[in-house]
C-alpha cells in the first residue's frame, strides 16, 4: 500500500512537472508597428552618425522624449540648428584632447553611451536651475542647448564642465581611484552641500561647494575643474585659500595627476594644456587680465643674454647694464624677475654674482594696466630699506639703462607667440611688454606662479 501511495505521489509530481509552465507558441505581438518614430535622417542626424555614433558608438538624442528627463518638469526640446554647434564643441573641447594625449582610441574604449540634449534648463523648486545631469556613467543630459553659444567661452565652459565631471565618474568606474583620497578632507563632506558657500568649501580644501557632496564628487570636481580652469587658473584659485587648505588642494591635485598616469597612462598636465588650447581657440586668454595673485601669473622671469629673441633695443640696454656691472662694480649681472605682488604693484629684481654668491637688487613699482592692456610702471615713492633695496640704490648707475627703459615707456602686455611660436596661457608661457610707441622694441619673459 505504501508503495502504491508513493508511486501515486511520484506520478503526480511527474505529471505536475510536465503540466506546469507549459508555454504555447511564441510571442507574436509586433510592437514595431506602433513605433512611428523611425524618422527620415536629417543632415543633423547624418552629422551625428558620422561624428559620434560611427566612431565612438555614442548616441546623441535630441528629439524630445519625456522619459529621458526629470518627470513632472516642463523642459523644452533643443532647436535643431543648435545641435551641430553644440556637439562640435563637445568634440573639439572634450574628445579631441583625450585622443591627443590618451591615444586615438581612448574615447572609443571608455565613453558614455548617450548624450541627451534639452533646449531649456531644468528648473528646480528652490529657484535654482540644473544645467547638466548624468546617470550611472551611461547617459549625460546637457541642458540650455538653445542658448548655447560656441563663440562664448563661459557658455562653452559651462557645457563641457558637466561632461568632464561625469566622464571622471566613468573613468573612476573603469579604474578605481585611490581609496585614501577621501581622508584628505575627512569631515568636510556633507549631504546638504548646497548650504555651503564656495569660500567655506575652499577653506576646507574643496575646489567647489559641490565637491563637498561626497568623495567621488570631490574627485570629479577636482579633475573637471583642473581641466577647465587650466593650471594657471587653478593655481591662482588655490593660492587664495588658507594655508592648510592649500596643502589639501595640492595633495588632491597630486592624487588626480597620479591616477591619470597609473590608470590610463595620461599626462594630466598635458591633457590640461590640450583642453585649455581648445578653449583658447574659442577665446584666447588675455595676458594683461591674468596678472596678479589670485588672478593668474605672479612672476615674469628672463635671462636676456640666454633668451634667443629679446628685441635689439632691450638687449643692447641689458648688455650695457652687464658691462656697467662688470666695469664699475666687478659684479656679474644674471637675470631679472618681475614679481606681481598685487594687481597694481610689482617688484623688479636683478640677481647678480659677487664672487660665487648670488645677490639681489630690488625696487618696488606701482603698475596701472588700462583697458587697452597698456601698463604704466612708476617707481614707488616709498621703498623698503632692507639690504636688497639698498643694493638697488647703490647699483642704480649700472642698472640705469634697463631701469629707465621700464620707467620711461608705456608697454602693451601680450603674449609673444607671434614672434616666438609656443603655448599661451600655461605655466612658463612667454609673455612680453611691447613698447607702446614701437612694438619692435619689447622685453619678454617666462610667466610663472
Amino acid at each position, binding site marked *: *500500500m505504501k508503495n*502504491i*501511495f508513493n508511486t*501515486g*505521489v511520484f*506520478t*503526480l509530481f511527474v*505529471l*505536475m512537472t510536465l*503540466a*506546469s*509552465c*507549459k508555454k*504555447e507558441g511564441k510571442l507574436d*505581438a*509586433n*510592437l514595431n*508597428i*506602433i513605433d*512611428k*518614430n523611425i*524618422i*527620415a535622417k*536629417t543632415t543633423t542626424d547624418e552629422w551625428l552618425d558620422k561624428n559620434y555614433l560611427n566612431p565612438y558608438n555614442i548616441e546623441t538624442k*535630441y*528629439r*524630445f*522624449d*519625456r522619459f529621458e528627463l526629470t518627470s513632472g*518638469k*516642463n*523642459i*523644452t*526640446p*533643443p*532647436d*535643431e540648428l543648435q545641435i551641430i554647434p553644440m556637439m562640435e564643441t563637445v568634440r573639439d573641447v572634450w574628445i579631441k584632447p583625450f585622443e591627443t594625449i590618451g591615444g586615438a582610441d581612448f574615447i572609443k574604449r571608455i565613453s558614455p553611451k548617450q548624450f541627451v540634449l534639452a*533646449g*531649456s*534648463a531644468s*528648473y528646480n523648486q528652490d*529657484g535654482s536651475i540644473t544645467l547638466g545631469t548624468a546617470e550611472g556613467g551611461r547617459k549625460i543630459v546637457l541642458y540650455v542647448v*538653445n*542658448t548655447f553659444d560656441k563663440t562664448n567661452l563661459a557658455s562653452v565652459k559651462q557645457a563641457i564642465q558637466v561632461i568632464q565631471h561625469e566622464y571622471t565618474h566613468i573613468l573612476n568606474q573603469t579604474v578605481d581611484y585611490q581609496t585614501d583620497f577621501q581622508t584628505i578632507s575627512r569631515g568636510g563632506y556633507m549631504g546638504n552641500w548646497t548650504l555651503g558657500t564656495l569660500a567655506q568649501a575652499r577653506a576646507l580644501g574643496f575646489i567647489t561647494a559641490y565637491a563637498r557632496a561626497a568623495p567621488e564628487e570631490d574627485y570629479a570636481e577636482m579633475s573637471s575643474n583642473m581641466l577647465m580652469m587650466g593650471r594657471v587658473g587653478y593655481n591662482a584659485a588655490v593660492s587664495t585659500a588658507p594655508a592648510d587648505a592649500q596643502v589639501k588642494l595640492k595633495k588632491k591635485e597630486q592624487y588626480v595627476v597620479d591616477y591619470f598616469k597609473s590608470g590610463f597612462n595620461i599626462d594630466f598636465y598635458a591633457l590640461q594644456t590640450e583642453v585649455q588650447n581648445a578653449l583658447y581657440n574659442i577665446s584666447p586668454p588675455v595676458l594683461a587680465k591674468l596678472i596678479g595673485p589670485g588672478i593668474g601669473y605672479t612672476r615674469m622671469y628672463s635671462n636676456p643674454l640666454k633668451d634667443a629673441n629679446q628685441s635689439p633695443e632691450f638687449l643692447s640696454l641689458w648688455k650695457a647694464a652687464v658691462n656697467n656691472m662688470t666695469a664699475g662694480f666687478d659684479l656679474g649681472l644674471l637675470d631679472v624677475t618681475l614679481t606681481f605682488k598685487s594687481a597694481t604693484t610689482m617688484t623688479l629684481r636683478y640677481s647678480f654674482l659677487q664672487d660665487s654668491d648670488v645677490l639681489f637688487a630690488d625696487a618696488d613699482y606701482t603698475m596701472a594696466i588700462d583697458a587697452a592692456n597698456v601698463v604704466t610702471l612708476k617707481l614707488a615713492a616709498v621703498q623698503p630699506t632692507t639690504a636688497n633695496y639698498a643694493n638697488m640704490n647703490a647699483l642704480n648707475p649700472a642698472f640705469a639703462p634697463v631701469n629707465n627703459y621700464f620707467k620711461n615707456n608705456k608697454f602693451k602686455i601680450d603674449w609673444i607667440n607671434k614672434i616666438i611660436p609656443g603655448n599661451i596661457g600655461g605655466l612658463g608661457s612667454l609673455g612680453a611688454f611691447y613698447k607702446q610707441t614701437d612694438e619692435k622694441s619689447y622685453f619678454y619673459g617666462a610667466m610663472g606662479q
Partner: protein
Amino acid sequence: MKNRTSMVLWDNNLKDKQMKRIIIYALLSLTVFSACKKENVVLIDGEKPEERVAEALTKYSDQLTGSPYGWKAYLYPNGGGGFAFYLNFDKKNRVTMYADLDYGPATVSKESSYRLKASQNPALVFDTYNYMHILADPDPNIFGGAPGWGLYSDFEFNFGVQTGDTLKLSGKLLDSKLVLVRATKEEQDLYNNKGLLNSLTNSVDYIGNNSTLYVNLDGATNVETKFDPNLKVMTLRWLEKGNITAVTAPFVFTLNGMLLQSPVSYKGKLMQEFIWDAAKSIFYTTVDGKRVDIQSSPVPLIPLHLLIGINYTSITTPNATSYPGWSSDFIARRAKAAAATLVSGYNLRLDKMAFVFNANDKTLVLNADVYQNANRFIASYNYTYTKTAAGVYKFTLGTMNGNASLITAAMAPLVNERLSTDQFIVDYFTNPANKQTLGQFKSVEHPDFAFSGALQ
C-alpha cells in the same frame, strides 16, 4: 469468519481509501493541467491592441499629412490666452509653421520635426524646438510667464474629438487645448504671402489707436469689447445699474482679424469672430447672422471709479514740475513740498508718487519716492476711504511709515492740506499731447487742485 469478514471489510475500506486518494491526486493533477492551459484570447474587433494603436496612428498620420493646404491651428495654453499657427506636416516627420506670437514668426517660416507616438493614447509630439515651444519655454526671458513654466503651454498632444475638418487635441502635461482646422488653397496662399503679418499689424495698430471699442446690440447699452494683444484675452464688459458685468475669452489672430476660443455672450447674443473691414478700416462681428460694426469711443465707457482698485491698480504722477492734467495750484504745492523735503535735514528729492487703490479693502496707499543722492526711499501714507455711488472719495489717513513721518511738515501742502482733508473725484484724463488716457484726482472743495498720472 467474523474476523475474516472484518478483515476483508477492513481490506475493502483500505482499498476505498487508497482509491479516494488516487482520485483526489488525479483530480488535483487535472486542475494543475487545466490551470496551465492557455485559452485563445478574445480580441475586440478581432484585432490585437498594438494593431489597433498602429491603425489609429496611421489614420492620424494620413490625416495630418493629407491636408493639401495645411492646417490652421489654435493653441490655448493652460496659462491663458490664445495663439494661432499655420502648420504644414509632411511625410518625413517635418512640420513648417507661421505663428501670431510676434511680427517675426507671422512671416518667417520655422521648420522642426514632429512625430506621432503611441503612449496611452495616440499623440502628436512637436519634438524639436519651434514657435510652439516658445510659449512653453521655462525661461521667462524668452516669452514671459513663470520661471520653470512660461505660459503653461504644451507641445505634446493627445488626439481627441474629430468633427468634420476640425481635429481637437489636448496637451499631455498641462491640458492646453489645440484645435486644428483644414486650411484652404486661398488661405495657404495668404499665409505664404504675409497674410498673417498684415492682419496682425492691422489689428494691433487699430487696438492701439482706439483705446475704447464697443458694440451696441440692443440700442440701449454700449458694451465694451476690449482686446489685450499681449495677454491675448478679450473682455466683454458693460455697466448695468452701477455694476460692471464682464466676461472674458482667449483670442487668436487670424487672416481676417480676431477669433475667440469660444463665443462671449451679452444677454444671450453671441460673438466669436471679429473681422477686419479694410474698406471701412473697422472691425465687425456677426450676431444672430447679422453684421454688427465695432465702434470706437474717444473716452472710456465705464467710469474710472468702478475700475480702479480692480482692473487698474494705481495712478502715478511722474517726477516733473508740470504735467498734462496738473492744475496750477497742484504745481505750486508740489513745488513747495519738493523744496521743503530738500531742506528737511535729510536732503530728500521728491520723485514720482504712486496712488495705489484696493477696491476690496477700500484702501489707498500713497507711495512717494524720495531720493537721498542716488538712494531711493519710499514715504508711505496708508488711507482708508469711503466712496459715494457717484464716485466721490473721502480718504482718511491711517498709519505712515518712518520716512513719511520724517517729512510730514514738508509734504503738508499735498497731504495734510489736501489729500487727507478734501473729497476727490477720480476720473479719466486724456493727455492732449498724445491722446493717452491718464487717471486724475480732482478736489471737490478746491476745484483748482487737480493732478493726473499714468493709469496702470
